[in-house]
Structure formats: C-alpha cells, structure tokens
C-alpha cells in the first residue's frame, strides 16, 4: 500500500469500518511510515477537539426567554 492509497481510505480506517483484509495492509503500511501514523493521529485529535468542545454558551437572557416560551407552550399543549 502506498501513502496515497492509505489517504483514500483514511475515513474507513479512522471510523473502524475498513475491510479486515485491507486493514492488515493499512496497519502494515502504518507500522513502517511515521508520517502516515502522525496524520492518522492528527485526524483523531482533530475530531476529538470539536466533538468534546462545547464552545458556545447560551446568552443568559436568551436562555431565560427560551425556558419561559417552552414552559408556556408545554402548559398550552398539555392542558386537558
């Protein structure tokens, strides 16, 4: 496997959905190719950075309005 081939299958490898037979080739290449190892590792870090970060907080005033609106709607729709 060449670096370019590895690059084309990067999604499947990172997501753990690569065909087991191809996965062996992939890992053999990785074991001997430090740049590819680092790229795979960088991509995993990149995903973690966005998945685990919750960068925006609701403005307090908006949050108060949101909860009031929802409570009113709830009472309207649940009035029997």
């Amino acid at each position: 496997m060449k670096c370019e081939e590895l690059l084309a299958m990067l999604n499947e490898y990172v997501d753990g959905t690569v065909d087991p037979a191809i996965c062996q080739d992939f890992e053999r290449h990785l074991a001997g190719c430090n740049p590819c190892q680092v790229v795979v590792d960088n991509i995993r870090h990149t995903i973690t950075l966005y998945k685990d970060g919750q960068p925006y907080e609701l403005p307090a005033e908006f949050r108060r309005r949101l909860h009031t609106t929802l409570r009113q709607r709830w009472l309207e729709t649940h009035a029997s």
Partner: protein
Amino acid sequence: MVETDSDEIWVRQAKAGDLSAFEALVSRHEGRVYSLAQRMLRQEQDAEDVVQQTFLSALEHLAGFREESSFATWLARIATHAALKIIRRRQSRDATATVSLEQNTEPQPGYDTIPHPEYIADWRQSPHKLLEQKELRQTIEGALETLDEKHRLVFLLRDVEGLSVRDTAQTLGLSEANVKVRLLRARLQLREKLTTAFGDPARRLVGGHTHEAGAAAVS
C-alpha cells in the same frame, strides 16, 4: 453511558407529561444544540432561532420520537433541518450564490484530487489540554469557519454529532458517496490548519513524503 441512560428516563417521563423532565432535557442539551447552530450558521440571532425552533419542535413531536436514535441525535437532526432552512434563505437572497447546497456537489465523488497533507507533526498538547485554554477557542473555531459550508455541515453532523454516514446523507439530502468525500476533505483541511497551529515544529516531518523518505525530519 450514564447521560444517555438518564436521557431515556427523562424522555419517558416527559412523554408521560412531566414538565420538569422535559426541562431537564432542555437544560442538558441546549448548550450542545446552540454550539451546533452557531457552528453551522456563524450568526448569533440565527443560532438562537434554531435553538428555539428545535426545542419547540421537540416538545411538539416528543410523542412521535421512537427512540431509535439517541435524544441528542434526534435533536441534532431537528436543529440541522432548521439551520438548512436559514442557509437556503440566505442563498436565495444572495444573488452571487447560484448553486444550492445539494447542487454544490463535488464534480465526481472520487478521491483522486484529495489534498495531500503538508504540515505533518505531532501536536504539542493533547486535544483536552487545548480545550482547557479559552484563548485557543478562536483558533479552533476559526479553523472550522474557514471550511466551505458543504464540508463544514458534513463534518459537524458526522464527526461532532456522531450521525452515521447514511443519516448524514439523508439529513443533508446528499448521496452517501458525496458525504464520504466531503468528510475526508473536511477532516484533512481541519487537520492541516490545526496542525499548523498546534503541531510541534521541532518534530515536523517531511510533507509530500514517500514511504522511504517518510521518517526524515525537516530540521
């Protein structure tokens, strides 16, 4: 996961008419939905509208939520549909935008023109250490903002919200092949920008490497 477990309990209680369970669900998920909306739309007022529409819609359709996906995923899909409406309205208002999100596909969903990684280096710090530093937020969110909308939305749904390729395709009205290509481009572009910012220059490896020359350092 504990959080998912109590989501399921709260969903059941809310379905049975318990307002406090519904409010607990809103409080738990509002920050995540707001972050998703901000990242999709990059505009505070529009993001607030999406959050409000999402939870109103969740309230209205809760009885129909079949719990085949997690509550968080269900909310992400509702929020995305609301955000797409805003994006389409923007596109139709913007005279320069001549293609819609769906039409704006890759010429061929092939992998032949994938950008090659240039800046290859281990990061100086772990992602969680980086997230602890508030002053880096602009760098991290700024990198995401530089992605084309079509790449950013796929990355957000697939990698951040954890939707499957099929669900991402369905939600955005794209083919699965197109989702995969866009996702790879998004991941590679973000990797490049973040590694340029957070990579350790002393451990930078040769870009455009071949297998043999791979391990040689630049300096």
